[in-house]
């Protein structure tokens, strides 16, 4: 086998066994790798009755075929399983250094089931696979855990670790690679915590990647890397990070303010934007493995209430979630909040959004001082967020910490009192920091049809609406108007296929904007030897999209769940999108027709599944 190794590591933490297992070669051709292959393996091996935190649940880490190629953007990996935050199928991706190292160690993925009787860590070294006790790391944050891992296994070892939030089963706990990169969304840190799995350590001896056409791949890799390095987008991201254009986003109405209640705050735009972060706190730029963009920030704040030592800095999502969303323009506070979330191991999007929901609930008396143990929740009060709320959530301390550790959706169901009106979710997942009303109406559609819930990385719709993509070979030649429904359903159908390809090959959405459709096909063929045409590749993307929907159907979701909070649809009250309605229902109806989705069940019809070679899967859902 080329590119992929064809083997995964199957771990049962209950019986403390590790087993090398071959994956059928056709699975790679049909489901690509990463998120797609994880969905396929769960379909075969998963227990649909097991709750996310039950010992019987599966936690699946999966590489794409490109991990290990010395090319910008292709060092990401996926984690997947039944989400503790949403209760249904989900996945999350992460850059950094773990995925290539896992490939170099001989594995395409790790499938974990069971529950250890004590805290443990999985260690993967060639010919030396083992489960170690990790009692001495239990209770530590991610930074100290990673530091001890490096002391024990050497600096070349790459790790995934959870912090206290994962141990305490916070529903949006994340998994952190080397302190700086996170499988952020949907709560897989809590699944690790439930299995008493503190860390996974991988260390290879040599960096071998066995390409189907090494010469062709090398030529293609150099040419793509040059385009990526020279693009305006890459240069902007390199200089000022992923928040480089936060200021621009405020002017278009893309950046949410105070729980998506406002769409324009000019003073905040300059205070929080990436160039301000560079000027005030940036110490170094950092990169994922083999990436020339280096959009990661390393920051230091020397004084003030939010002083932090030199270390990982915030991404755009973190800055907006702990800045504009909470009515704050204190950039230092966003850095401190992000740093705490990295150490506790918590998703910053859900954490910030849940706190924003709580602030609005408190303002409108759905939450009272009795609920908060006497703590007033006020917009912009970042001292309270940093010093009290985040620690309370991570340790599930007190009534309020326990409530907010559930995420906003379940917290709202718990308190009721009309607090559902303040949600900004789809399928129980908090929306990212891109407001569909200003960022692009197509986002409302793609948030709602995403298998894991409101998500901007499930597919490239955000980039398609802003004009960063042009794919004439597959019919995407539109110049979309963000604040309109025109051609959005048609674009979304391409977006879900491209998103499945991106997340199954585990390619970074910033870097891959420079890759043309023919180059995508060549990448798969030269690396993994899939021998695809464009049609084969797009069909694989569609197959993955459909399989993820079938999984969710088996978890009980239907067409009605392809919905989104009203807050994200109601006309904006200010800024560029003021008063412009989002025609959600008509976009969804059109998308359902184009994607041949049943309007009740929300899954593709039998003939469509048959045409993609999914007749067996169809028989589970169309009896």
């Amino acid at each position, binding site marked *: 086998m080329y590119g992929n190794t064809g083997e995964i590591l199957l771990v049962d933490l209950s019986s403390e066994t590790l087993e090398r297992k071959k994956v059928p070669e056709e699975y790679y051709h049909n489901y690509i790798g990463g998120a797609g292959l994880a969905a396929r393996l769960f379909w075969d091996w998963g227990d649909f009755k097991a709750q996310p935190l039950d010992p019987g649940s599966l936690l699946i880490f999966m590489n794409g075929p490109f991990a290990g190629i010395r090319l910008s953007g292709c060092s990401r990996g996926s984690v997947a399983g039944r989400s503790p935050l949403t209760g249904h199928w989900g996945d999350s991706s992460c850059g950094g250094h773990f995925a290539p190292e896992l490939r170099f160690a001989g594995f395409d993925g790790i499938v974990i089931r069971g529950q250890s009787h004590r805290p443990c860590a999985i260690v993967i070294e060639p010919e030396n696979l083992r489960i170690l006790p990790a009692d001495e790391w239990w209770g530590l944050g991610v930074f100290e855990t990673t530091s001890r891992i490096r002391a024990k296994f050497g600096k070349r070892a790459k790790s995934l670790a959870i912090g206290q939030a994962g141990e305490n089963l916070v529903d949006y706990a994340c998994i952190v690679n080397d302190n700086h990169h996170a499988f952020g969304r949907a709560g897989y840190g809590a699944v690790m915590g439930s299995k008493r799995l503190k860390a996974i350590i991988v260390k290879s001896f040599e960096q071998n990647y066995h390409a189907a056409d090494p010469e062709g791949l090398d030529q293609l890799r150099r040419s793509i890397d040059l385009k990526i390095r020279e*693009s*305006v*987008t890459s240069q*902007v*991201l390199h200089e*000022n*990070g*992923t*928040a*480089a*254009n*936060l*200021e*621009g*986003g405020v*002017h*278009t109405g*893309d950046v949410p303010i105070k729980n998506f209640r406002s769409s*324009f705050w000019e003073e905040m*735009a300059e205070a929080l*934007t*990436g*160039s301000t972060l560079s000027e005030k706190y940036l110490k170094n730029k950092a990169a994922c493995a083999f990436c020339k963009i280096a959009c990661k920030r390393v920051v230091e704040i020397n004084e003030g209430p939010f002083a932090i030592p030199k270390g990982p800095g915030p*991404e*755009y*999502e973190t800055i907006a979630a702990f800045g504009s969303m909470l009515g704050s323009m204190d950039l230092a506070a966003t850095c401190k909040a992000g740093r705490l979330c990295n150490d506790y191991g918590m998703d910053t999007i859900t954490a910030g959004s849940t706190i924003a929901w709580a602030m609005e609930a408190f303002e409108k008396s759905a939450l009272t001082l009795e609920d908060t143990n006497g703590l007033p929740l006020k917009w912009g009060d970042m001292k309270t967020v940093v010093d009290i709320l985040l620690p309370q959530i991570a340790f599930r301390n007190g009534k309020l910490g326990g409530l907010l550790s559930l995420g906003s959706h379940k917290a709202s169901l718990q308190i009721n009192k009309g607090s559902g009106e303040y949600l900004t979710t789809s399928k129980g997942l908090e929306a*990212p*920091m*891109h407001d569909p009303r200003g*960022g692009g109406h197509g986002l409302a559609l793609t948030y709602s049809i995403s298998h894991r819930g409101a998500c*901007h*990385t499930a597919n490239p719709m*955000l*980039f398609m609406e*802003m*004009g*960063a993509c042009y794919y004439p070979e597959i019919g995407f030649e539109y110049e979309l108007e*963000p*604040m309109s429904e025109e051609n959005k359903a048609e674009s979304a159908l391409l977006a879900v296929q491209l998103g499945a390809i991106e997340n199954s090959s585990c390619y970074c*959405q*910033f870097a891959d904007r420079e890759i043309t459709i023919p180059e995508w096909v060549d990448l798969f063929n030269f690396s993994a030897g899939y021998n695809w045409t464009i049609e084969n590749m797009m069909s694989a993307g569609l197959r993955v999209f459909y399989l993820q929907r079938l999984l969710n159907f088996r978890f009980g979701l239907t067409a009605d769940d392809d919905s989104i909070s009203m807050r994200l649809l109601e006309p904006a009250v200010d*800024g*560029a999108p*003021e008063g412009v309605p989002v025609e959600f229902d008509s976009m969804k109806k059109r998308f359902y027709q184009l994607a041949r989705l049943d309007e009740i069940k929300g899954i593709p019809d039998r003939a469509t599944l048959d045409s993609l070679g999914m007749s067996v899967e169809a028989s589970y859902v169309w009896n």
Partner: protein
Amino acid sequence: MKITIIPVGSVKTFMNETIVNVPAGISYEDILKSLKLPKSLRTIALVNNKRPNAKQVIHDGDELKIVSLIMGG
């Protein structure tokens, strides 16, 4: 007539805020073309902080913001 052109976000890398004289009846799209920004830099325009119509005419004293569309994740 005089208008103010304000670069926002990443557009600042390519131009500074400027007050320019433009002929009466000019559309914002014509002004955008005259700025000769890199083709790969996708931008949108706001006239007095609102999205203009396709052929909206600019008036004396208007504020034209050029906003880049590179979004973070």
